[in-house]
């Protein structure tokens, strides 16, 4: 007999460095859990597809909302309030008043549009001299102040906005106020609701991912009861038994996330052309907002963590139930 198998004294685990032991154990668990996924392709793919679909739904909804938001937030669509000053107010007086208004906390900025500028702008827009000629030499426009309100300060509510407009209307030199803000305020209110809905959908589908992975792991445990029993008989700790299952959950979550990103990219690619065509017709340079690297990373991290938690719950439940016996 070689002394290889039988030296009863100092078992290697007592001699080895604990970090090395731990690393070896992790490596075995990783290798083992990946092998299990690989060798159960059907159950693995079904689980991954379920997770991917569950993750793709809220993410695509999010992308839709996000795209609509960018569309309405784009430069040309910033809501403004136009203040028409009384006809006797000079350009200089208008400038002084604009400075005062710009100091309001609710105001992002305010600028003067003089009656001349307004006329030029009007001419450019109409693209024809006919109407202007018919107006003769008279410029019908008063001096105006264009105010861009700060929606975050106004709290994004319609009451806040109308209060603010009422205050402006009441100030001196103001003839009338035109605002095209109410529709954008409504849109913001809708987005607020949609964002809440999105949150709920995310939570529900996140829960789905958790349950799907938890259930997959639970079935896996059922199939491997004998293995767990035997490893316990030869001295496995709960930590050791749990480890490959946790990795298993982690992989399912992570690869499910990868698959969902793949699905989303394909879907975006599919939409790119018709959207570009539509944008062309509307003469905007709008293009789809895709999945940013940060969002991709978030999806992967969240799904991996969900997998880990699902596995943890499944194994924890099992381990708590049992004591060791032969």
């Amino acid at each position, binding site marked *: 007999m070689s002394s290889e*198998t*039988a030296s*009863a004294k100092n078992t290697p685990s007592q001699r080895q460095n604990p970090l090395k032991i731990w690393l070896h*154990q992790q490596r075995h668990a990783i290798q083992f859990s990946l092998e299990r996924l690989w060798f159960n392709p059907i159950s693995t793919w079904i689980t991954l597809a379920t997770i991917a679909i569950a993750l793709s739904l809220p993410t695509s909804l999010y992308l839709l909302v996000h795209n609509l938001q960018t569309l309405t937030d784009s430069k040309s669509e910033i809501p403004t309030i136009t203040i028409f000053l009384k006809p006797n107010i000079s350009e200089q007086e208008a400038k002084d008043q604009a400075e005062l208004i710009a100091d309001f906390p609710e105001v992002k900025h305010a600028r003067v549009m003089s009656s001349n500028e307004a006329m030029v702008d009007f001419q450019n827009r109409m693209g024809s001299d006919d109407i202007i000629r018919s107006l003769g030499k008279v410029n019908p426009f008063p001096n105006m102040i264009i105010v861009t309100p700060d929606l975050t300060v106004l709290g994004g509510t319609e009451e806040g906005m109308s209060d603010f407009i009422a205050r402006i209307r009441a100030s001196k030199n103001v003839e009338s106020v035109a605002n095209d803000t109410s529709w954008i305020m409504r849109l913001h209110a809708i987005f607020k609701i949609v964002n809440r809905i999105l949150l709920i959908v995310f939570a529900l589908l996140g829960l789905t991912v958790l349950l799907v992975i938890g259930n997959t792991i639970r079935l896996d445990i059922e199939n491997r009861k004998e293995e767990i029993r035997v490893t316990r008989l*030869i*001295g496995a700790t709960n930590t050791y038994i749990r480890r490959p299952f946790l990795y298993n959950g982690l992989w399912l979550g992570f690869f499910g996330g990868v698959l969902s990103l793949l699905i989303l990219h394909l879907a975006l690619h599919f939409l790119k052309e018709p959207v570009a065509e539509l944008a062309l017709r509307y003469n905007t340079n709008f293009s789809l907002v895709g999945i940013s690297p940060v969002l991709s990373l978030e999806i992967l991290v969240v799904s991996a963590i969900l997998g880990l938690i699902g596995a943890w719950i499944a194994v924890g439940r099992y381990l708590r139930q049992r004591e060791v016996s032969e």
Partner: protein
Amino acid sequence: MIEFKGVSKRYSTGQLALYNVNLSLAAGEMIFITGHSGSGKSTLLKLVALLERPSKGEVIVGGRPLNKLSQRNIPHYRRRIGFIFQDPHLLHDRTVFDNVAMPLLLSGLAQADIRRRVQAALDKVGLANKEKNYPLMLSAGEKQRVGIARAMVNRPTIILADEPTGNLDPELAQDIMYTFEQFNELGATVLIASHDHALVERMRKRTIVLQKVNP
């Protein structure tokens, strides 16, 4: 090393398996436990491995009363023991090699060390050429030997063997007994339950005979 003090074991079914057992085993000793079927041999071994708890009395191993061992430390304690089960409890979805490697994975050995040690253990029980086989392709005797290799591969300080030669032909049984003896000479404390009287007598070791208890 191993001490039984007034140990009785009654199973939850009401079956009394051991009654007032007193036994003392020095470190590095090798003893046999014999007795008729149902006399409590397996139960006695399980008490040492903490697979069962005594109903009365105390089992002390290495100076430590086992009932004082915390739940957390039981796995670590069990790793110092090589238990050869009557039914070897092999995992059918992995090869002979992977079955034998299990205790080493638990101990977190490096791949190269595992390979070396598993091959040496399989060599020892005469199964060097079967490492890639699955347990279902093996005879009962070969399975038993895989179980023995798995119990020995981590160099345990205590070896408990429950009818280790039950499925082996006499020649092989004798070989396996010598293997135990070699382990014992290297310092392991060995406890073997067997009802093969001829074999036990040939080994010339201390032998304890259990009487069947009549409740």
